[in-house]
């Protein structure tokens, strides 16, 4: 069939070079011909205190970044959408999109100049005589947090902006004319109608945080290990392939889980919206 013919190169490429290795790696992490079932490696991961701590730290950090990104992102997106001047709005959009396209190493490195021993904050606090000697800001959870926030805030804002732009302009006006105050307008109109954007943005940010490598590596180092840096350590430093694979798989399954949960959420939202609009 002509239809499938056009798809074959792309599908063959992805299946052979991408999906099979990943599935193969997964199978290998569960069952090995010479050793039999090795699935207890997954249990080992959660039995070891270090890896357990790292895992929950990663989840917690991702959650925190997602929430803060949402809190900053929603009003930002509303501000962007409200800008009437077209060229100003497109400039704002460019500024928001731009960080996504810059090299993540360069982006993260910027924080070294802010948080380093002789970075902006230490110099500022020293010159204000708040501090007598520089404090360590790098290789802390705070550093990783702020780095991740910078990295993923644009994703949240873009998701929310497009959700807000899709919202029919006269719906909020209609709600106002029917007597909704600002609070009601937000909770009864904006939130439900942009729920899909919220879910999409949150999913992107959350999964992005779980899997990000550069930021925890540069700003957290081995002091604040995250799932991704632990994975790299196991693979490259200790050459423990099995454990590295297990961590990779746990990372993958976690993002998959988040995707599933969010899909369930967003389909609820969509269904509600469809029902409302008949």
């Amino acid at each position: 069939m002509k239809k499938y013919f056009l798809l074959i190169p792309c599908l063959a490429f992805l299946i052979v070079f991408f999906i099979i290795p990943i599935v193969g790696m997964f199978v290998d992490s569960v069952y090995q011909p010479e050793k039999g079932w090795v699935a207890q490696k997954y249990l080992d991961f959660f039995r070891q205190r270090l890896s357990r701590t790292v895992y929950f730290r990663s989840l917690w950090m991702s959650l925190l970044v997602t929430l803060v990104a949402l809190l900053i992102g929603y009003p930002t997106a509303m501000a962007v959408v409200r800008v009437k001047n077209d060229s100003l709005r497109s400039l704002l959009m460019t500024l928001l999109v731009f960080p996504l396209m810059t090299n993540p190493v360069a982006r993260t490195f910027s924080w070294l100049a802010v948080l380093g021993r002789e970075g902006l904050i230490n110099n500022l606090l020293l010159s204000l005589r708040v501090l007598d000697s520089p404090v360590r800001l790098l290789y802390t959870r705070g550093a990783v947090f702020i780095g991740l926030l910078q990295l993923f805030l644009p994703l949240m804002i873009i998701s929310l902006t497009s959700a807000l732009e899709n919202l029919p302009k006269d719906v909020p006006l209609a709600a106002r004319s029917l007597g909704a105050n600002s609070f009601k307008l937000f909770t009864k109109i904006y939130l439900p109608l942009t729920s899909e954007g919220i879910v999409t943005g949150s999913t992107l940010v959350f999964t992005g945080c779980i899997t990000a490598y550069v930021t925890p590596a540069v700003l957290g180092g081995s002091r604040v290990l995250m799932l991704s840096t632990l994975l790299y350590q196991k693979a490259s430093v200790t050459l423990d392939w099995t454990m590295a694979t297990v961590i990779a798989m746990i990372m993958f399954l976690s993002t998959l889980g988040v995707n599933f949960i969010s899909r369930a959420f967003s389909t609820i939202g969509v269904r509600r919206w469809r029902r409302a609009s008949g």
Partner: protein
Amino acid sequence: MTVALFVALSIMLGPFLIIFFASFEPSSTLRFPPTGFTLDWFRKVMGMSMFQKSLVLSLRIALMASLLSLLLGVPAAYALSRYSFKGKRTIEIIVTSPLIIPGMVAGLALLRFFVLMQVFPIETTLLIGHTAVVLPYAVRSVLSSLVNLPVAIEEAAQSLGAHPLRCFFLVVLPNIKVGIISAFIMAFITSFNNVPISLFLSGPGVNTLPIVMMTYMEYYYNPSIAALSTLLIGLTLAIVLVAQKLLGVSKLV
């Protein structure tokens, strides 16, 4: 809301400004505010062969991965936009899978399957990984311009005697130019910036620029990376501005 916008912009963009100024720092530690002004770090970083080599590799991989992804992605996007068939949902999942599967997972899998088993050399594997990762961007971008192109235009061309293949080159391709260019730009930037895939797929002589930068940062704490970052950020800014001028920013994301 304006406050939030300001906060968001300063979190996202502030560090860029700081890195920009920090790259002119004359002393050999990274500091802000800088204590003077020098262009030495720019000169130095551009003269270092490790950066030069890795830059060339990164550009080569990004170029080839983008072209390859278009070669694979354009026909696929065409089929997805024009036909309905069984298993379409599954195919869409396969095509978008590189977006869902974490890059480090894919990188590790490719390393174990192709490099360690000596199926392909590292550089080939790197190209494979990058192509797979940028493919969804290529497909998505081309798909969205195809969806906006009415099928009737193709039917018109065919009814006037154009063979479907000729119709594609004479009528479809010129009208999805914007989608293809933005697909290329997105794919190129994504590949050029990629770390998680390249992280595991590096070896003697095969190190992409971001990986070399990371390695360098572990040992040296001087403004050279700041200078390099400034250069890269400036380059990206130029690409984004040109792209925006040509296509409009909405087309890129």
